[in-house]
């Protein structure tokens, strides 16, 4: 091990490499990775790095809570497909990003999180603002590092970025002790990444692809189930071409929305607990189900014993551990979705006749569309979402938290293009949607960004309105205000004898005044006849707007597959 202070001078002369502090090395490495923006919040242990940010004048977005910073970085990552970078301090700063890291892990978002750490000589002594971030984040990161020596810093950053973006994307954490960020070392970024234990399979096995195509030739009732893996692989085009070529109906997971055009005839909509009748029945009756890049989440499958009971299942996934994890799979294909779809497209063209199946599927779509009942001047949340879609013509990025507003948005906003839909799918994080919208707007300044949140979720991270104010980011916050924890209330109504234990918010803050405090335009609407105008006014304004929409308080999300049941017994299917 070379001690940097001694070794720096001769080596630097020889390699013409500069002697730098750890902080400089870190920022040079970030620049080498093409990082354009950092989301963060300073604090004691990360101060040397912040000093360097000051000197270099890097684009840094200051959140008002670390959770806001990391969700913004997630939003940025989702839109750009590049790693979101978040820098926070040790201890509480670091623990405040834990939710965002877990969220990114569940939704496979590429992230590099840098946490300050106390100096190496006091690590393990319960020093001031010390938290064991390596231990805390071990189960919620794709990989994590603690820098023990200045000499490994640059290479570690390189490895972190490589791990975050390759294979199945995910969050990587680098814990950087303060003394190391101050030590002198050499910035050497030439060494290639060498990780013998980490070799993701990108190209699928030809035999497995052939097996899939062979089975496909016999399939009478094929269905494609599409998850976020298709979006991560940027394989929407291939997917659309494949579905069109073979005329296969496409069901999407919550996170897969946008991978296949929402307006297409073959589009069945979202499948799962609050999916469409057509998507769920197609899964239930299918004889050949091809899952691409979805992990068969329990919210999607319903009770496993009733899931796709007649189907032979093929599963394409870059993460072999996802294959066979929840559902028995006959044809496993490990690889990147884009590569797999390209190989499938090249495969033989003859397939079994399935006109009857396609007709059945479109009959389901026609007979059992998503529905709601109008109620005078009361605004129904479903109609709000439909109107947002109409007003933007779908040309918008939409983010949400978790809950009723999330499900209504997934159901009623049609996503025709990839990377327009950002939601906390796996972890179901309240407070995610608004800061994620900030990251998305920074990544995509040209598109309108709608942060559709609930009144409860918004209150978890609303302090990030500061960023909107500071940067005059034109994010449109749409609060679907039903004065409750809507989904909790719905479950209490259905499963807990209408005992609304702490889920109703009879007293609400004045959201408009809150917006005013942050110097943000506010619009409030509670009458259906005024809704169009309010939306138009919101979208027309060039800066940020908070649009509060008071909606029907007791509206429920339907249809629904209740826990423990299968897709065939949906409740609240209604029209026919």
């Amino acid at each position, binding site marked *: 091990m070379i001690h940097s202070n001694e070794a720096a001078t001769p080596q630097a002369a020889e390699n013409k490499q500069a002697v730098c502090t750890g902080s400089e090395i870190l920022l040079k490495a970030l620049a080498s990775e093409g990082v354009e923006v950092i989301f963060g919040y300073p604090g004691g242990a990360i101060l040397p790095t912040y000093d360097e940010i000051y000197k270099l004048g890097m684009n840094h977005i200051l959140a008002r809570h670390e959770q806001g910073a990391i969700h913004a970085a997630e939003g940025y990552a989702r839109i750009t497909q590049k790693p979101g970078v978040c820098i926070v301090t040790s201890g509480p700063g670091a623990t405040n990003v834990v939710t965002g890291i877990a969220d990114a892990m569940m939704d496979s978002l590429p992230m590099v999180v840098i946490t300050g750490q106390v100096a190496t000589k006091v690590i393990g002594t319960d020093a001031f603002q010390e938290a064991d971030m*390596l*231990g805390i984040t*071990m*189960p919620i990161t*794709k*990989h994590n590092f603690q820098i023990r020596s200045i000499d490994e810093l640059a290479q570690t950053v390189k490895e972190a970025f490589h*791990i975050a973006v390759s294979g199945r994307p995910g969050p990587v954490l680098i814990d950087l002790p303060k003394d190391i960020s101050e030590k002198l070392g050499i910035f050497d970024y030439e060494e290639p990444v060498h*990780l*013998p*234990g*980490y070799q993701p399979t990108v190209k699928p096995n030809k035999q497995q692809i052939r097996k899939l195509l062979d089975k496909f030739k016999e399939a009478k009732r094929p269905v494609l189930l599409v998850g976020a893996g298709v979006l991560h692989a940027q394989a929407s085009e291939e997917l659309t071409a494949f579905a069109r070529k073979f005329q296969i109906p496409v069901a999407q997971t919550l996170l897969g929305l946008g991978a296949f055009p929402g307006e297409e005839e073959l589009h069945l909509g979202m499948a799962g607990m609050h999916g469409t009748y057509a998507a769920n029945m197609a899964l239930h009756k299918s004889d050949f189900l091809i899952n691409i890049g979805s992990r068969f989440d329990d919210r999607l499958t319903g009770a496993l014993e009733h899931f796709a009971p007649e189907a032979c299942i093929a599963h394409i996934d870059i*993460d*072999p*551990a996802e*294959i*066979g*994890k929840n559902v*028995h799979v006959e044809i*496993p294909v*490990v690889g990147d979705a884009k590569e797999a779809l390209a190989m499938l497209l090249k495969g033989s063209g003859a397939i079994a006749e399935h006109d009857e199946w396609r007709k059945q599927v479109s009959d389901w779509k026609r007979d059992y569309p998503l529905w709601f009942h109008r109620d005078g001047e009361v605004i129904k949340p479903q109609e709000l979402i439909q109107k947002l879609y109409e007003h933007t013509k779908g040309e918008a990025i939409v983010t949400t938290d978790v809950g009723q507003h999330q499900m209504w948005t997934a159901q009623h906003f049609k996503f025709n293009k990839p990377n327009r839909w950002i939601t906390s799918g796996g972890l179901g994080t309240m407070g995610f949607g608004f800061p994620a919208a900030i990251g998305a707007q920074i990544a995509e300044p040209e598109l309108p960004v709608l942060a559709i949140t609930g009144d409860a979720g918004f209150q978890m991270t609303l302090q990030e309105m500061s960023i909107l104010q500071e940067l005059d980011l034109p994010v449109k916050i749409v609060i679907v205000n039903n004065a409750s924890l809507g989904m909790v209330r719905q479950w209490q109504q259905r499963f807990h004898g209408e005992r609304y234990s702490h889920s109703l918010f009879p007293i609400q803050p004045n959201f408009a005044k809150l917006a005013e405090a942050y110097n943000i335009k506010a619009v409030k609407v509670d009458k259906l006849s005024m809704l169009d105008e309010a939306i138009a006014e919101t979208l027309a304004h060039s800066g940020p707007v908070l649009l509060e929409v008071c909606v029907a308080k007791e509206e429920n999300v339907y249809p629904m597959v209740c826990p423990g049941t299968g897709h065939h017994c949906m409740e609240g299917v209604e029209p026919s």
Partner: protein
Amino acid sequence: MKRTITVLVNNKSGVLNRMTGLFARRQYNIDSITVGVTENPTISRMTFVVIVDSMENVEQMIKQLHKQVDVLKIKDITDEAIVERELALVRIGATPQQRGEIASLAETFRAQAVDIGKESMTLQITGNNEKIEAFIELVKPYGIQELARTGVTAVNRSSKISTDTSRLTLIN
């Protein structure tokens, strides 16, 4: 069922923690773990004996282990020709009169006396799990004062390596 799984990992601090943490949160039941450095000082070898309900369970466990960046190679060697050994140290009550009897008993198992006190003696035994179980059962009547077991460590035999390649095709 019991499965024996060997894992080659980077010899870095915290790697064992990553493995056991993964086992714990995914509810895989570990029977024993042994860890030691290999002929290459940068690589350690771990031997896990796990108790699982099904082969799907083992497969999932192996796939999850594979996702760890520090894991270099994993093998389920349960059905292969292997040499597996465990070591146990047992201190049992032994009066001077009983020593001879215990010594002959130990000899049958190729166990060795490694310490003798006034009223007790400590025996060392190596072998596979069953042999050790049998030995402990046998010395129980003397009164076991202390017992330490290492857990299983294992390697493939040099010949007759079975080739059941039908399983775990995704990762092997």
